[in-house]
Every structure is written in structure tokens, then in C-alpha cells.
């Protein structure tokens, strides 16, 4: 069994490129040291998760929630939201009573 586990660990090792790609998807900027560290730690965790390969799940339905609640609606009534001032209070930058975001086009100003 030990041999088997070793095979899995090698098999599941993430490449540096994969780590950088996942970081990009997650909108995270990693240092070179972090990329190296996560490469081994994420591989370690994936190797642990591989324990699930031992159980057969083919015939099972997935559980996404445990309450059994479905179609929970609220009355379609308009209620007051946060006052403008309150809603903007946590923002680092505001302009004309709006949140100021980063430019999304290359030639935009930062």
C-alpha cells in the first residue's frame, strides 16, 4: 500500500506553470518562493485527497447541501437598502458618490 501512495504523490505533483496559472485564476500574486512552497504543499494535499480513490462513488448522487430546503423565496417587496454614505464608508477611494475601481483597459489611467 505504501508503494501505491508513493506513486500517487509523484503522479499528482503540480508543475510550477500550473501553480502560476492557478494563482492567475485566483487573482493572487505569488512570490517565486511562494510558488515553490505551494508547488510542494499543494501536491502534498492532493496526495492526501487521493484517499478518496479507494471508495467507489459512481452510484452515489452528489450532496451539495444538507438542509433539504429547496426554492426558498422571499416576498417580492422593496425594502430600504443602506444609505449611500454608509455603503461608501468602507471604500478606500470614491468619486462622485461612486466606488473608484482600477481601469480595466490598458490605456486607462490607474
Amino acid at each position, binding site marked *: 500500500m505504501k508503494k501505491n501512495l508513493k506513486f500517487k504523490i509523484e503522479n499528482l505533483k503540480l508543475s510550477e506553470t500550473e501553480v502560476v496559472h*492557478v494563482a492567475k485564476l485566483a487573482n*493572487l500574486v505569488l512570490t517565486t518562493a511562494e510558488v515553490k*512552497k505551494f508547488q510542494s504543499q499543494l501536491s502534498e494535499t492532493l496526495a492526501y485527497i487521493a484517499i*478518496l480513490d479507494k*471508495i467507489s*462513488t459512481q452510484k452515489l448522487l452528489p450532496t451539495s447541501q*444538507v*438542509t433539504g430546503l429547496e426554492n426558498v423565496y422571499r416576498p417580492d417587496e422593496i425594502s430600504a437598502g443602506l444609505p449611500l454614505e454608509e455603503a461608501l464608508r468602507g*471604500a478606500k477611494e470614491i468619486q462622485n458618490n461612486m466606488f473608484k475601481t482600477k481601469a480595466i483597459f490598458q490605456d486607462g489611467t490607474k
Partner: protein
Amino acid sequence: MELNNLTISQAQSGLKKKKFSGAELVKACLKRINQVDPKIKAFITVCETEALKNPINAGPLSGIPIAVKDVFCTSGMKTTAASRVLKDFVPPYDATVVEKLKQAGAIILGKTNLDSFCHGSSTETSDFFTTKNPWNLARLPGGSSGGSAAAVTADETIAAIGTETAGSIRQPAAWCGVVGLKPTYGRVSRYGVIAMASSLDSPGPIAKTVEDAAILLNIMAGNDPKDATTLRAGVPDYLKDLNAPIKNLKIGLPKQYFPREMDSKVKQKIEEAILVLEKLGAKIIPISLLDPHYAIAVYTIIQRAEVSSNLARYDGIRFGHERDQFNEENKRRIMLGTYTLSAGYYDAYYLKAQKARTLILEDFRKAFGKVDVIVGPTSPTTALALGASQKSAMFGELQDLLLEPSSIAGLSGLSLGAGFAAGLPVGMQIIGPPLSEPLILQVGQAYQQATDWHERKPNL
């Protein structure tokens, strides 16, 4: 007796008889915080001015000081999730639980430390500081609700509120020797609680006695239109049958909850506690459950995936700071979740975990066909030394081995002190089916009535 040492029920009785006032209770707690918190470091924010000045509502908790884990939004009061991302975030509204506590007359004493965004089981991933275990300052309090558990243990507050995703109430309660209740998923509203894993997060009380946990659940539980996952089932009075005898109750003892890696002294204490329950008339029935190591894998996948999704909203635009302020543990969890949810891997990881989750639910359903509740150790060890969490990328999961299956299944669970090993508290957990809080509280109460572990205090 110092007022801060009181339980909720003792404080309620003293207030009713006008032996002291709510303000005196608050002052006693604040004095204790000033004395011991420089050592314990349970609080991120102490709300001294607000606690003394805000008017006290009439209600069942009128004048009772409560410490709140710093993951519940508190209107006008800094709420950080122990993260640099939210280090100066002041929410414009109260979490439903906080609102209910205030309406019941409770006084919010302060906000307690945790693992940042609840990512851990030690408070060592807090971006600010590590909380110390009041029983031994060189030991961890557990986590993520470690600040709440330590504050209750050190009598810095009358009681506290925490949240559990898988172990974050019960494990610190066990390591600190207090009572922690993880309610059924959906029993207590998550509205205004900074999310970790939305399909698992369950707010609950951390208290000095089982009775106090029942008092708090009476206030916290119930349907909330602001949280569509809250259950519609009526809320019973959790105090009503609290003192009912447990004669003939069928208690399941799963052999898988005594794993090889378990501390032998913890095992011994739990076996002694089970003898106490047997003497009270309960029938102990050996049962077999799925190996809890499977639950770790399921939990790791589901929780990391939901973390990755929940933390995607932190962009530093509307509130908080930018994503470069996430710490290493936050990033590690976001990364794994993003990976398992990404194209091509979803079926192999997330879907597989959701299917295995079904298996765990069915396993418990079968067990509860034979027994009323399940009892076992809360944690395989007593409180570990400071620094222990640095040793594994999966420290939290491995510590919560015996708690993750019941969390994944959304069950209710209670942890309470069952003695001491080498001067550190040992925790026993009682797991019940969904909405069985009255029953697990009843078992805990019967045990506390027959023992006095909960009356012992650390020397600070």
C-alpha cells in the same frame, strides 16, 4: 466570588435579585481583561466604551457580557476576521446573531481572536497574534474560535460566541476545557458572518456550562429571512428538558473515533467519562462508522473550493484591502480550491467529494437508526504547544479528524470537559442527528451534574 467568574445562569439570578448590576458585571469582566489579556491575548478589540455606555435592552440576557468572535459583523465596531485584508473594516450592520443577542439585552464586550478568515485550528494563522491557552501559556487554545474559548476559560467574559465549519467551536472548547456547541447546519443564521465554507458554517455558543450553552442557543437559533439556508423548524425551549434523566438512552461508541495516533491519556479519560454516562443509566453500544480520514479528504476539497469562491469577492474596492494582504494560509486554501474547481478537475475532485459526502451522511443515518447519540473524544490530543500548526500544510484538518465527519453531515455536536491529562483539559463530544440539540444538551447536562470538571479554573 468575582462577578466575572459567574455563569450566565448565575449572573441572571444575581441580576434578578439585584445583588449587582449589568454595569458591575461588565466592569468585572473589563478588569479581568486588563489583568490577564496581556498574557492570554484572546481579544482583538475590547469595546470598553460601548459596553459601558450603550443602553441595555430588557430581555433574557439583559446585562450579560458576551464576547463575540471577530468574524461576526458588528455595526460601527471593527470586524477584522483576524486578517490584514479587513484590519480596519467597520461594518454598517449587525450579523443576525449579534442583533439577536443585543435585542435579548446582552452586552457585546469585545471581539475575539481567531485564525484569519477561520483558516486554522490554532489561532496561529491570525494576522495579529496567537492566543494562549489559559491552562498553560506555552500551549495553543485551539481554533479557529480560540479567542472565544480562551476568554471564557480565563473568565474574561461570562460567555462567548464562535463559529464552526468543522471543529472550530468544539476543538478550542475541548482544548480550553469549556463547553462548545455546534448547532445543526441551518439552525443558526449565517447572515453577517464572514464566510469560510458556506455549506458548512454554523455559528454557536462557547460557554462555562451546558446550561449556559442552552440559554444562548435559545436566543441564537431560528429561521432568518436574510439567510435562505436557515431551517424553518420551530425552535424548542432548549432549557425545558435539560435536566431529564438519560436512563436507557442508547449511546453509540464508534471504534474509529479512537484512532492509533490518539493520546493514550485522552483515551483513558474518555473511557472514564463513558463509565459515568453508563452509571447514569445510558446503554453504551459499540458501533462502526466510516474511517474519519475519508472525511478529511472530503472536507479539504469542499472547504477549499468554497473558500476560493467566498474570498474571490475581496478586491479592496468597496471595503477592505487588496488581495496581496491575504496571508500564506489564506492563499494556500484559495489556490487549492481554485485548482480543484478549475476546468478538467471539477469531476475528479469537487464532484467526487460531494458524492463521498452522501456516503458520510448515509453512514450517520444508519448509525442513528441504532443509537440516539454518538460519543467520543473531541480531539485526539490535548492542547499542543505553540508553533505546532507550522508543521503541516493540513494541520487544521488533521487536528479536526474526529469533528469533520459530523460537520460534513451537518449534524449537531457538543464538546465538554471530561477531565485533565497532565494538567490540560480533555474534551468529550456528543454528536446527535440534525436538530437533536435538546438531546445532546441533555446528555451533556447529565454528565456535568455528575462531575465537577467544569468548575475547575486555571491559575492565572
